[in-house]
């Protein structure tokens, strides 16, 4: 036991801690703890009132036990009692226990709040500080509700002690982070800004933290802080190292405050006032100059503090992005750090340069360091530094150095740490695509990627190479030749087999003229890999084989023999078996013409967002977004600008809101046939109807082909909620309940807060829908890194397909951007998809999630019918599960016209004269989904006297009845 026991020693506690430390095993420790817990419990329950000291000691022991990782379920009351002690250390332990172990027991919260209130009112600064610390430590919403109103008053009161002011400022900051809505801006804000002028540097430091956080969300309110912060900063950077006494840290004047002031200035654009702006530029220049001066101390603390200020100044320079001179100087300074012997500085320089690379003023200056960065990639011993080097290479890449950078990254990939391989693969794939002048280079690069790091090549990457090869005629022959050669390797990665299979199936004919790659050789080569591959790859290869039947009639019999073999026709896997059966049948029955149509070359892919970018974005978090979006813009122009989506046979006649290759549109033709479950019978059906639905068949074959590879699976666009990075932000808006207002109408404002307004316009036809989402920036400042995703949770994913295109990452102040969602209803559903929006506003990440009003009734088609028909069908749906009835109270005035409008808005036809009672409403409609159609009849009986309704719904599916009833009954 150490001798130190300043203030108060608690002998019993020290003995207990020693005992625990002496325990030889976990069991012994638990035994000792249980003994102690029993002891404390008996003391607390005992008749004898405990004195303050004992209470403190036992509470402290409980705390110790809790911090060891054990559960504590008593002692809270005793801790609360300690709050009312007059003895400082007893009070202190009480507060500590509560800060660490508070639970939301409401009874206790009231008592705690009482204790805090008393101490806040005590005018004893040490007690006030304890209370403020406790509020900040707990930081719960309840605390905010109780105290958010009082703390600003304490903060700006003239007679508050400095130390209390500091605590009050940070306490308020914490509450604002938890519950910004409970901290209303007001008259106090201007007085807080003036704390920047306070004489006490501790007060200024605390106030700067508070103002920075508040200013991020209320920039207008705190605009005046800019000039005050600049003058404060200027006084600090020009002061001699001894001027600030205790606030000088290893010869650096007030480094913490300097960093915070520079951070505050990053909430704003460059100052408009020329004098302020000039003064700030001077400050930044001084900071850059100081970096060149010889160090005043050899201690690492000196250089760390000095460079902390320097890096923050560089961040501000980058943020302003307006002074080319400063940007280039910053870049040169970072260039020096790239070769510094301190690993920390090299790391930070690489990181900081990444952002400099995106500025037009400094991009070229950053590029001059390429050799050093490549050197870092090869020589750094710390993987986190190497990762920064990869990031920087990615950021500095442009047309002039793409080949070199991609080559270096591929080189590095051979030995790269497993933890960062996938990311490097994504980056290489993106760069290769973005800067491909010559697409043969692109194809080579991707095949190299697969060769070097096949396991890390995600589906997105190889989907993309196929999309590009299919869309670019000039590279198809080369691609076929190259994959053919790559497949010669005795052991090649399965991803290569997939790419090879797909490309040869499409373009194998382009190289078939060469004897060395004749059809039979191609087929044998692919088939030699077949048995080593997984089921999905084999499925893909089977599709390749049937494509070969069309491309190379001379090897038809060989392929038919393979398909006919027991290992295919009787394969245990149902998908493989089905394909073998269908393809074999197709090859036997269909004429050459039909085969040629069915197995036609894949049409060019419609222009779509590279899913690789989305993947990288997901991996890297929102910080990378701007860079990525930039990539995207350029890519659209370079690559896909010329490739207009071609219309293929099946899509010509059906105008549709969707541009998806899967051919959602074509489903209308056979929408009554469940495609997946009875694919086999589908083919037979098609044949029995002769040649009429050729287009349908073609699209069905396509469907099969692409469903095996999932090239266009909607999942690519929809973030998996399980893996999506959840950026937790203290004032995260929870997902609002699905708004009832959109059930019966399609347009309106979906969401609105101080920053953002989301408007909707939507149209639905059969099982398809299109929704226009409008994002309006209500502020005068840009939103950066703006992104929005639609998330279909769990089961909904298979019931609803939603495709989106990313929106521009920057939303200017006052501007509105539009996003289009294409929606396909696959089967009936209950949950609503969630629209998740993220953006940076003044440096803070904002996160908004709202439920999208895509409800089942949107897929209604109204059905007019006679009274007789109606009742006949009504009777047919007499199974008890098919009917759902609800009696409920009217929430709105019972107006016949409004009710009629709502029922029509709900999507059904309003049938007049069907019900004998004219005050009742009767409606009929059909819900269209991709898999089934569900007829629906409804009857609404108002009772004006009781102000009640009775709603009855009958449909052929119980889930549909229930969902529709739930939706409609909320409307009246």
């Amino acid at each position, binding site marked *: 036991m*150490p001798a*130190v026991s*300043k*203030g*108060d020693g608690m002998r019993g506690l020290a003995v207990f*801690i020693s005992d625990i*430390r002496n325990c030889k095993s976990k069991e012994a420790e638990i035994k000792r703890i249980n003994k102690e817990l029993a002891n404390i419990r008996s003391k607390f329950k005992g008749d004898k009132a405990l004195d303050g000291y004992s209470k403190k000691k036992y509470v402290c022991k409980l705390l*110790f036990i809790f*911090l060891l*990782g054990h559960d504590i379920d008593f002692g809270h009351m005793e801790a609360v009692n300690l709050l009312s002690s*007059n*003895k*400082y*250390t007893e009070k*202190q332990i009480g507060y*500590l226990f509560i800060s660490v172990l508070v639970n939301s027991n409401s009874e206790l919260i009231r008592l705690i709040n009482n204790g805090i209130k008393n101490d806040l009112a005590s005018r004893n600064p040490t007690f006030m*500080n304890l209370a403020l*610390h406790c509020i*900040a*430590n707990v*930081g719960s919403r309840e605390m905010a509700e109780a105290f958010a109103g009082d703390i600003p008053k304490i903060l700006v009161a003239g007679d508050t002690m400095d*130390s209390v002011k500091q605590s009050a400022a*940070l*306490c308020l*900051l*914490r509450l604002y*982070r938890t519950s910004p809505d409970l901290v209303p801006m007001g008259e106090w804000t201007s007085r807080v800004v003036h704390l920047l002028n306070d004489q006490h540097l*501790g007060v200024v*430091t*605390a106030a700067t*933290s508070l103002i920075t956080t508040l200013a991020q969300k209320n920039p207008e309110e705190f605009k005046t802080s800019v000039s005050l912060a600049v003058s404060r900063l200027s006084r600090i950077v020009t002061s001699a190292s001894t001027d600030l006494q*205790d*606030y000088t*840290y290893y010869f650096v004047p*007030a*480094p*913490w*405050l300097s*960093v915070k002031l520079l*951070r505050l200035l990053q909430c704003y654009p460059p100052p408009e006032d020329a004098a302020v702006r000039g003064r700030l530029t001077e400050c930044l220049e001084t900071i850059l100059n100081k970096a060149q001066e010889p160090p005043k101390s050899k201690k690492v*603390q000196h250089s*760390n503090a000095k460079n*902390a200020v320097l*890096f*923050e100044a560089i961040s501000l320079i980058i943020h302003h992005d307006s002074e080319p001179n400063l940007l280039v100087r910053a870049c040169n300074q970072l260039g020096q750090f790239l070769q510094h012997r301190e*690993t*920390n500085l*090299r*790391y*930070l320089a690489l990181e900081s340069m990444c952002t400099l690379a995106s500025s037009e003023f400094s991009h070229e200056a950053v590029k001059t360091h390429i050799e050093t960065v490549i050197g870092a990639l090869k020589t750094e*011993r*710390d993987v*986190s*530094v190497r*990762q920064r080097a990869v990031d920087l290479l990615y950021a500095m890449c442009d047309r002039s150095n793409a080949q070199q950078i991609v080559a270096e990254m591929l080189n590095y990939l051979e030995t790269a740490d497993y933890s960062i391989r996938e990311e490097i693969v994504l980056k290489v794939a993106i760069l290769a695509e973005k800067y491909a002048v010559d697409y043969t280079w692109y194809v080579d690069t991707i095949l190299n990627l697969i060769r070097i790091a096949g396991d890390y090549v995600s589906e997105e990457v190889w989907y993309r190479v196929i999309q590009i090869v299919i869309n670019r005629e000039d590279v198809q022959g080369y691609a076929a030749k190259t994959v053919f050669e790559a497949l010669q390797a005795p052991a090649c990665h399965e991803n290569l087999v997939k790419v090879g299979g797909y490309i040869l199936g499409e373009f194998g004919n382009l190289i078939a003229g060469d004897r060395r790659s004749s059809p039979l050789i191609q087929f044998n080569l692919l088939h030699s890999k077949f048995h080593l591959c997984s089921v999905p790859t084999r499925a893909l290869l089977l599709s390749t084989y049937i494509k070969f039947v069309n491309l190379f009639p001379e090897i038809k019999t060989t392929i038919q023999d393979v398909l006919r073999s027991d290992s295919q026709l009787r394969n245990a896997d149902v998908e493989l078996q089905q394909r073998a059966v269908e393809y074999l049948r197709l090859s036997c029955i269909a004429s050459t013409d039909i085969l040629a149509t069915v197995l036609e070359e894949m049409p060019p892919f419609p222009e779509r967002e590279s899913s690789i970018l989305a993947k990288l974005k997901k991996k890297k*978090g929102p910080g990378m977004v701007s860079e990525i979006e930039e990539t995207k813009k350029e890519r659209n122009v370079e690559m896909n600008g010329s490739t207009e989506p071609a219309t293929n046979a099946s899509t010509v006649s059906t105008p549709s809101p969707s541009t998806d290759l899967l051919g959602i549109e074509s489903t209308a033709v056979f929408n009554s046939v469940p495609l997946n479950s009875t694919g086999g019978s589908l083919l037979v059906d098609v044949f029995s109807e002769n040649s009429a639905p050729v287009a349908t068949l073609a699209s069905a074959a396509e469907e099969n082909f692409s469903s095996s590879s999932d090239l266009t699976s909607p999942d690519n666009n929809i973030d998996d909620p399980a893996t999506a*990075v959840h*950026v937790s932000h*203290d004032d995260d808006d929870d997902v609002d309940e699905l708004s009832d207002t959109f059930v019966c109408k399609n347009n309106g404002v979906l969401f609105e807060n101080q920053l953002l307004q989301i408007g909707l316009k939507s149209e639905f036809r059969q099982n398809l829908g299109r929704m226009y989402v409008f994002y309006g920036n209500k502020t005068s400042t840009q939103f950066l890194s703006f992104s929005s995703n639609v998330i279909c949770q769990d089961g909904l994913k298979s019931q609803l397909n939603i495709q989106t295109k990313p929106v521009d990452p920057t939303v200017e102040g006052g501007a509105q951007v539009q996003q289009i969602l294409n929606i396909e209803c696959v089967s009936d559903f209950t949950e609503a998809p969630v629209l998740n929006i993220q953006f940076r506003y003044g*440096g803070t990440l904002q996160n908004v999630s709202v439920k999208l009003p895509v409800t089942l009734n949107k897929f209604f088609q109204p059905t007019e019918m006679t009274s007789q028909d109606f009742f006949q069908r009504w009777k047919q749906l007499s199974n008890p599960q098919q009917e759902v009835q609800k009696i409920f109270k009217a929430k709105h005035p019972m107006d016949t016209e409004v009710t009629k409008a709502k029922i029509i808005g709900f999507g059904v036809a309003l049938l007049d004269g069907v019900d004998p009672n004219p005050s009742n409403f009767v409606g009929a409609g059909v819900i269209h989904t991709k898999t089934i159609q569900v007829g629906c009849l409804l009857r609404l009986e108002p009772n004006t006297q009781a102000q009640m309704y009775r709603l009855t719904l009958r449909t052929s599916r119980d889930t549909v009845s229930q969902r529709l009833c739930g939706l409609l009954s909320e409307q009246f």
Partner: protein
Amino acid sequence: MRFMLLFSRQGKLRLQKWYTATSEREKKKMVRELMQVVLARKPKMCSFLEWRDLKIVYKRYASLYFCCAVEDQDNELITLEVIHRFVELLDKYFGSVCELDIIFNFEKAYFILDEFLMGGEIQDTSKKSVLKAIEQADLLQEVWEKIENLAKILETLALFIKQ
């Protein structure tokens, strides 16, 4: 700052301070994971790393690792000096601090940290101000103890006089 951890070379957690609401289960998981990552790092490696969506800044002092999790836009170097200043404060208070001091006087370590950082932001960077606050509290305690002792003596005296 999101949280600060102190743990030993052997992976024993000595102090934890959380500045955002986190469930106990999540805390335990994060501590376990992060300790593993940090303890696996070699001496000359850089003091910063990316972990989940956070930046980790850590430094080893003798047998103890001091480890802070900060947000993306926070300054790494100044965080490193936050750690150093905290070590200096502990050192000054305990007089050449060692791991045992923090084990046996864990509550003091928490009090010192609270005086220095609040809600994850630095409250005062002046060593004097922070220590003054702590010592004032100790002083208050001593005064109280003296008064109590005095009261006890008086009581005993009174008893004697009665007898």
